[in-house]
């Protein structure tokens, strides 16, 4: 999914003639703006920062004093990270193993809904067929179905298959070991689709109609328009959904617990981190370090997908 549209130079010329007064006001404005932004950023970061400081403190200290006392009286340890990464228990000796599992679960679970939803969104926005608005509304409304309510029927679909009046329409999947990943992909894809279709539909339907019309006059078919025009243009939306779906899957515990089968062959990082606290939560200080171990990958994904949010991506090709 690479964009072929040349990035348009952003409007950076600031040579607009302005009076002195307005220049002063502008500077003031930008100063307040910066201040407000910094305040929000600080407020938003402090809780996480506190957790980070806690993760570097010894167990006793975390449980008896506030994290800010760290700066007055720094007592620093990497024990929590050591526990999380190398662990005392045999299972935790291979955190990398769970990283791989998470990755294997996440990639297809992002790609499938992305592609299916993009196609559906295009069809719902630009193909003229009867009842399309109702199909769209129905898909939209499915967002409200709580995931928890879908677990039992979907699990039954995998483990018992589908039969109607004694006739087997679909046999049970009977997966084993690493094959269980397929169930997880399937489940994540199902659950992601309503939101994906909704989000992408909004972007796709905003595309200028004359663009489509022009392509159609040139004899382009729907698949061709979809591939060559629509996909590149909605790259920011795809990136945005990609990020959210990645996060959702990466942080998911519920779907993984039910469908991944729980053994160390398929269990993702979240399952392992949830175990780290011990049977009665007596080692919960490890969770502080665990949170930071698992946050790294989503942050990298976010930073690397950021470049798809390019100003003026549309302007280059539309309404020139």
């Amino acid at each position: 999914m690479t964009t072929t549209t040349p990035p348009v130079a952003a409007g950076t010329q600031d040579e607009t003639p302005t009076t002195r007064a307005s220049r002063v006001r502008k500077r003031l404005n930008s100063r307040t703006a910066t201040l407000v932004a910094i305040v929000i950023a600080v407020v938003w970061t402090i809780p996480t920062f506190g957790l980070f400081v806690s993760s570097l403190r010894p167990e006793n200290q975390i449980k008896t004093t506030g994290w800010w006392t760290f700066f007055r009286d720094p007592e620093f340890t990497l024990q929590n990270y050591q526990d999380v990464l190398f662990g005392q228990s045999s299972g935790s000796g291979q955190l990398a193993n769970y990283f791989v599992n998470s990755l294997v679960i996440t990639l297809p679970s992002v790609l499938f809904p992305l592609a299916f939803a993009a196609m559906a969104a295009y069809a719902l926005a630009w193909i003229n067929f009867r009842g399309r608005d109702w199909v769209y509304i129905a898909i939209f409304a499915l967002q409200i179905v709580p995931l928890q309510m879908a677990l039992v029927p979907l699990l039954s679909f995998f483990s018992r298959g589908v039969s109607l009046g004694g006739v087997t329409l679909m046999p049970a999947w009977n997966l084993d070991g690493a094959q269980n990943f397929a169930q997880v992909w399937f489940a994540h894809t199902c659950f992601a689709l309503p939101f994906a279709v909704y989000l992408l539909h909004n972007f796709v339907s905003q595309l200028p109609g004359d663009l489509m019309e022009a392509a159609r006059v040139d004899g382009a078919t729907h698949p061709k328009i979809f591939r060559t025009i629509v996909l590149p243009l909605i790259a920011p939306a795809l990136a945005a959904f990609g990020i959210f779906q990645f996060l959702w899957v990466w942080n998911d515990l519920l779907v993984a617990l039910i469908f991944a089968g729980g053994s160390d062959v398929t269990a993702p990082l979240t399952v392992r981190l949830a175990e780290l606290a011990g049977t009665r939560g007596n080692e919960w200080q490890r969770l502080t370090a665990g949170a930071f171990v698992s946050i790294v990958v989503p942050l990298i994904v976010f930073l690397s997908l950021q470049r798809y949010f390019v100003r003026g991506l549309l302007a280059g090709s539309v309404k020139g």
Partner: protein
Amino acid sequence: MAISARPRQALAIAGAIGLALSATACGTGSSSNSGSNNADSAECAPYEKYQGHDGKTVTIYSSIRDLEADRLAESWKQFEDCTGITINHEGSGEFEAQLPVRVDGGNAPDLAFIPQPGLLARFAERNQLKPASADTKAMAEENYPADWLKYSTVNGTFYGAPLGSNVKSFVWYSPKMFQEKGWTVPTTWEEMIKLSDTIADSGTKPWCAGIESGEATGWPATDWIEDVMLRTQTPEVYDQWTTHQIPFNDPRVAEALDRAGTILKNEKYVNGGFGGVRSIATTAFQEAGVPITQGKCALHRQASFYANQWPEGTRVAEDGDVFAFYFPAIDPAKGKPVLGGGEFVTAFNDRPEVQAVQTYLASGEHANSRAKIGDWVSANNKVDLANVANPIDKLSVEILQDDSSVFRFDGSDLMPAAVGAGTFWKGMVEWINGGNTASVLQGIESSWK
């Protein structure tokens, strides 16, 4: 959980070299250590009766995880080696919520360690459990007191033996602090109250408590009430209460609440190191006893498993930093009541290898094998005290094996989940937070249908 790492490794290397496309065929990875079967050696003699299931796999689901899960896996390692049965254990913190989903979804584990007889009864009544085999039943009857077995018997059918246990009737204290201040361990309720007053007069709040436990918030308070109930009333009344033969707002229950309230809701007594009475509601149970190590509180009523919650470096022993004494009886005429809990090994499949594992887990061999590894208590009467190293575990096993003890299971685990894990917990939170006894009990009673 990395049970069969070595054979799998060889297999996987073969895959990496170039048999790449066979991945789907060799993905299982866990049922492949049948080659390491050395059934004929002398060590394997005790496992002879479980033979004949070489190469089979049994899956177990429980709420036991991390270090304890590793120890469990270690405890049946020899059984696996000798019988060729592979046991795949999975522990989850979401066990109680996930197990019904898996069962309803047709993906039940072979065995589950269920800590709530109430949940066990629910599965049994919906015909989702398999009755224990005759072998399992005989083994269980031989090794466990009848007091325990009735909790896994539903409508006359026996579903499985207990595994681990814990004793809840303990008060934690600091032997060091007691010695310094010249206090003595109380053996009666009056002595305990007198001691509390002495400590309170010395300027320290004697008791600390905490009932916050995430979605299970409230359970430590229910243990308190049950323990007191078992002391103010006869065990028979306790049974009537947990089975709803007397209403939840019976005056006798109210009396137990009020009695517990003389400690828990007494601003003079609580909450050492944390604040006033209401701070009990928001204090995590894991941290609730910690002020004892800082001298900010002297007494903390909590189960034997609290031994693992102390900060690292705290010595748990009769002459150490912390230890526990038996929560004293109120009326000595009612004997030595003991409140406790544990998990039951129940089966969702009746394949022979599943039954073999179920029987083995009820045996003295397993109980001792697990006890030797440490930090474990069981009501199994074959447990040799010499195998129990930890002093608090030793004390627990002694109490459980003591003939004068009257054992009763944690009442909230016996009630239907909607009460025992729902309104009872919530009611206790409300009660601590200022709710009055009558209206709290009335609320719980009306939720029990």
